């Protein structure tokens, strides 16, 4: 099976890759958002001690 055949998914490429790509992007956005929230929370915590 060639790479082109693999990407075509027997004619269902749009549906199969549309599912997986959106899922991966959604998970990546969640991970980025949680990491940003955690580092912001850490910054707030250290500012409180400076007062």
């Amino acid at each position: 099976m060639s790479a082109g055949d693999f990407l075509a998914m027997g004619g269902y490429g749009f549906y199969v890759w549309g599912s997986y790509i959106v899922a991966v992007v959604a998970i990546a956005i969640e991970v980025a958002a949680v990491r940003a929230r955690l580092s912001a929370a850490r910054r707030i915590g250290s500012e409180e001690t400076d007062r």
Partner: protein
Amino acid sequence: MTSSINWFRFASPASFFPLAQRLAPWFAVSAALLAIVGIYLGFFVAPTDAQQGEAYRIIFIHVPAAWVSMFIYIVMAFWCAMSLTFNTRLAAMMAQALAPTGALFTFIALWTGALWGKPTWGTYWAWDARMTSELILLFLYFGYMALRNAIDDPRRADRASAVLALVGAINVPIIYFSVKWWNTLHQGASVSLTSAPTMARIMVAGMLVMAFAAWFYAIAVTLLRVQAIILERERATGWVGELAGAARGAK
């Protein structure tokens, strides 16, 4: 009652924080490894389906996402019940940390279901019993988060949102049994605990590995989010200041 291990020690945010910090990377790495194995099984080992061709490969993301979306809700409702019963801050924080990830998996289940429905059933969406109850699950997660955000006092937000989450829990068995109770578009379960799967073993294996990947991912990201929530909500306490001071000193 006497016990050699004081389990309630971890009910305090201050002592749970370092535990969450230590555990999160292990769950994240396990989730990544399981996802690699699951994708390999799903795309390179599992054969083409006789009826659906390659379109069925959506199963390896759709079914695990749907399972985890329901399971997270049950766990969230459990923590809400704990928070109402014992009035512990950490239980409410766990529920708060789970909701966005539950909404994420509900969204993935609905999205991939739509993209699977089009080639196999001829439609992206129908007001089928299972699809409608899964959509209600998404709204329950959104409603829970919106209600939390609408109440300024975190302890009042804990109680109000816990009541909402517990009332909404009735929807989870409705989703699960919808394919039995109503004979609408969505097919019945291919895998059950009581009978042999109606699909090839390798397909079931790929689905289960992906389900564990999704589950471990959910645990990892929840443990990260609960750390942020603990810091946000406990920042007036001394131990957060000490923690931040120690982190700054280490730089």
